[in-house]
């Protein structure tokens, strides 16, 4: 076929949004935040059904003692897939969906800051989900738990490809989550409507803004760990294999350094929803906005430093236990502050007991129980007794279901009218609610007691001990109520979408900006924005006689930060975490030397020479930027080509070093030093390579005549990334090559 014609047709059909809107593929190629949000939520719903059925099978297996409905290995696969799916493919996508839909509306923006990146982030979810589930066809699903503890997750103990698919899938999902977080940060900082200052952000937006930073800090840690696990499995590395000097406990540290913040990554969006719904249905502004906002920051910061309480049973030693116990108890303070604020908001309010509010009230009660059992795990001796029992299973399901899922269900009922233009049925919603309350509590309350009488978790069956039988049967019976609740919900969504009551712009008489536009909003979100002087613009319009007090100064005249630079800085923040983990792991193994090649065999002088090339390239890039600013096109191109050449020389130097090492028989699998060395320098080299590709693209664009106006924030943003890659090399150079000189 004729090439140019094809391209023209392609552009005609796909790239022109006006024409594209008529195609059925419009939903697949969309970059509109509202459609992407709906895609996120529908994908989450599909995986919710899958993971729910997995849970149903597990509970059927555990309903009676000595059951042989499922084989032990199948059971292990089920609980691994159930946990992984619920966390990465249900709760994260559904909350991301809500944020995607509501957050730009709440700040009066037209879309997210990076619409294409937004689509990328979404499509990572189905890709990750398919990869994860493809493992079933490729020899069996992973059976190592969602935490994939080493060395169980290593080749000698999990030889089939399940764990590989698991790790790659989570890596893809983590990458998508990071891109989403970058987008949220850039959107909130750069795309706020005039008058919407940071202090006037609705709590849902503020909390998810804070949450984006937790995602940026935590997900790269997991990605670094997964990369190391994959190197162990695919290239015969030794990171987490104690038999070769590796450390299985290191995996736990890395996993929980991600895993505990992850709990808050899941929970904070739920807190955000509750913080919107409770005031609206209590007909009062939130009690202590500042405390809810600030306690979210406290949670975000503290959540990074409490992961050790997941590892009390590992035997970290008393000093670590004591410090982690104290820091874990502290995190209860900001969470407690929030519960107090929500309750105080309801106090004295004219509460409307409609479905969103019912879910929030149940959320409050169940989250309180979850918090109390959570605090009990900060008490080390109690933790030793209950950590590996059903008490813990009950605790985290109270967090994940009792708090998060309930808040999400409330959020669905609350925002569905905005998304579809039609109300969900209130009576069917109440059925969903009560079935869920009964089912959830039937299933999980009794599990606390099962744990306390000694039933361990992660077992496929159990002997017929006194009371265990009826308690498990009771727990299983609750699952049927929850399943019924889910069916009613899906039925409600389907029926209401076609035949629900027309919602109108603001069915709940709410106060934030998403209710100031039509339901569903037009493509560009708003035709005109109301004046924004405080945190409840719609209240001010409805009650001009007694408006809210004005919050903070108006900063409409202040220019918002550039979204390209903000985005790349957020990305650099996450990359710093990734390299931080790789460098710390390298140091850990450096301090435990193994027989075989070590850092002393490396050629320092040669590496220094090539390092100079890399460092000089930062300078040449800076010259290129200056030339761009002064509109000297030739000079800019020259310095840019020079930068690319220097970067390439550095890469050639790295390849030369690898070649020499390979020649002398040093490979990733040789010993721990080699594994850690190739991982750290290899990932850095990969980043240099990606940076070079980016610079080549910019070179091509500049060659074509872009940036002629003399300002290119995208060019400067690429520069930030290039400088960052150089700075990382300073640390790598010091850690790998210079540190051994001091011995």
């Amino acid at each position: 076929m004729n090439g140019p014609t094809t391209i023209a047709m392609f552009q005609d059909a796909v790239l022109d949004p006006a024409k594209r809107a008529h195609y059925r593929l419009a939903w697949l190629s969309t970059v509109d935040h509202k459609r992407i949000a709906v895609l996120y939520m529908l994908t989450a719903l599909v995986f919710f059904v899958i993971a729910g059925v997995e849970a149903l099978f597990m509970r059927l297996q555990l309903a009676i003692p000595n059951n042989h409905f499922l084989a032990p290995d199948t059971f292990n696969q089920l609980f691994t897939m159930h946990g992984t799916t619920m966390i990465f493919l249900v709760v994260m996508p559904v909350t991301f969906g809500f944020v995607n839909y509501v957050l730009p509306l709440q700040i009066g923006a037209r879309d997210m800051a990076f619409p294409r990146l937004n689509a990328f982030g979404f499509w990572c979810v189905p890709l990750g989900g398919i990869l994860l589930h493809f493992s079933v066809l490729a020899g069996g699903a992973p059976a190592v738990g969602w935490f994939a503890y080493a060395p169980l997750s290593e080749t000698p103990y999990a030889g089939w490809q399940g764990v590989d698919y698991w790790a790659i899938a989570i890596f893809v999902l983590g990458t998508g989550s990071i891109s989403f977080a970058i987008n949220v940060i850039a959107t909130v900082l750069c795309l706020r409507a005039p008058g919407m200052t940071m202090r006037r952000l609705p709590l849902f937006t503020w909390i998810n803004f804070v949450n984006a930073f937790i995602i940026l800090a935590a997900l790269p840690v997991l990605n670094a760990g997964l990369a190391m696990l994959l190197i162990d499995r695919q290239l015969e590395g030794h990171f987490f294999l104690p038999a070769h000097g590796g450390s299985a406990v290191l995996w736990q540290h890395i996993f929980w350094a991600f895993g505990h913040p992850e709990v808050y990554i899941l929970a904070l969006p739920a807190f955000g929803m509750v913080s919107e719904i409770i005031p609206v249905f209590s007909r009062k502004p939130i009690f202590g906005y500042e405390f809810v906002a600030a306690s979210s920051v406290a949670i975000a910061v503290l959540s990074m430093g409490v992961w050790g309480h997941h590892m009390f049973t590992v035997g970290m030693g008393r000093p670590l236990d004591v410090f982690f116990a104290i820091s874990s108890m502290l995190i209860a303070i900001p969470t407690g502050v929030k519960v107090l604020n929500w309750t105080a908001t309801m106090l004295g309010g004219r509460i409307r007991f409609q479905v969103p509010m019912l879910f929030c009230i149940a959320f409050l009660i169940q989250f309180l129980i979850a918090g109390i059992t959570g605090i009990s795990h900060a008490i080390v001796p109690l933790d030793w007794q209950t950590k590996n029992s059903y008490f813990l299973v009950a605790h985290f399901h109270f967090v994940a279901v009792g708090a998060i899922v309930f808040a999400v269900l409330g959020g669905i009922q609350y925002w569905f009218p905005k998304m579809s233009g039609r109300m969900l049925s209130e009576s069917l919603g109440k059925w969903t609610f009560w079935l869920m309350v009964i089912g959830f509590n039937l299933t999980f309350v009794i599990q606390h007691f099962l744990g306390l009488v000694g039933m361990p978790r992660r077992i496929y069956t159990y002997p017929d001990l006194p009371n265990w039988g009826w308690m498990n049967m009771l727990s299983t019976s609750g699952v049927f109520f929850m399943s019924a609740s889910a069916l009613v919900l899906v039925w409600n969504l389907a029926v209401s979408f076609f035949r629900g009551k027309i919602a109108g712009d603001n069915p709940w008489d709410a106060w934030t900006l998403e209710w100031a536009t039509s339901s569903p909003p037009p493509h560009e979100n708003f035709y005109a924005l109301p004046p924004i002087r405080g945190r409840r613009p719609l209240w001010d319009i409805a009650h001009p006689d007694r408006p809210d007090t004005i919050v903070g100064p108006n900063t409409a005249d202040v220019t918002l930060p550039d979204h390209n630079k903000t985005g790349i800085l957020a990305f650099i923040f996450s990359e710093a975490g990734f390299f931080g983990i790789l460098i710390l792991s390298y140091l850990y193994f450096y301090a435990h030397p193994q027989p075989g090649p070590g850092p002393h065999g490396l050629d320092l002088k040669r590496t220094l020479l090539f390092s100079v090339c890399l460092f000089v390239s930062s300078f040449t890039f800076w010259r290129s930027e200056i030339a761009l600013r002064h509109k000297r096109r030739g000079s800019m191109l020259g310095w840019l080509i020079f930068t690319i050449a220097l970067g390439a020389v550095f890469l050639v130097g790295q390849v030369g070093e690898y070649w020499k090492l390979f020649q002398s028989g040093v490979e990733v699998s040789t010993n721990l030093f080699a594994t850690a060395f190739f991982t750290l320098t290899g990932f850095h080299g990969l980043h240099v390579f990606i940076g070079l590709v980016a610079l080549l693209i910019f070179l091509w664009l500049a060659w074509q005549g872009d940036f002629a106006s003399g300002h290119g924030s995208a060019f400067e943003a690429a520069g930030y990334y290039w400088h960052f890659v150089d700075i990382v090399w300073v640390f790598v150079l010091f850690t790998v090559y210079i540190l051994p000189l001091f011995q």
Partner: protein
Amino acid sequence: MTTYQFFTTAWTWNSLVLILIVLAFVAYFVAFGQRGRPLYFGAAVAVFLLAFISPFSALADGYLFSAHMVQHILLVLIVPAFLLLSLPQSFSLRFPLNYLAHPLIGWVAGVGAMWLWHAPTLCNAAATSRMVSAIQTTSLLIMGSIFWWQVIAPRDEQRLSPLAGIVYLFTACTACSVLGIILTFAPVSICPVYQHPVDRLGMLSSIRGQWGLTSDRDQQIGGLLMWVPMCLIYVTAILAQLARWHSSPHPEQSNA
């Protein structure tokens, strides 16, 4: 020496210290007179004394790495913070000191004060030589002051904006936590002096036996102190930034 005897007798009062305190107060009142906030200055002096004449000081002096860490944290984060708070509103930095009031310099000073003095050679030297120890103390106070200037300088316009302040504090917290993590998990001694202390006070058997502080455990506690409680100081400062942000400025003034 028993533990009780130790905590009652190991206070190293001496006339030089007392004279220095009196001189410090005199200098403070001469410099700032009525405008200063002497309570904060008193707090700074009190914490400084806690670090240097209490039994903690005796422990930090060659016995326990963890006690040294407490001293270190007090000198970098607590004393300079009180010193800056004690300054009058009218206080400004004059040339050339005003060049130190740059966020990057402040950040590097604050984080550098932690990292630099825990390089094994320097840490050892400070624990064995009085001279190096004095240099260390002075440098920690100065670097800590440069760090805190960005956050609690006397006047609002001298400080970072609250949200920038949070980024400043959070990144500093992370950088110090990383050091804390390295110290906690390091299999080798960061400050070998503390492995085999010279038993000047006859306390070693109590420390190792009764208190259960082996040298490994001691270093672990030292690392954890830098990792967890020190981060809590930063977290407190972050919350203070949020409080400052939400309380200022008054809407009526700026919205008219």
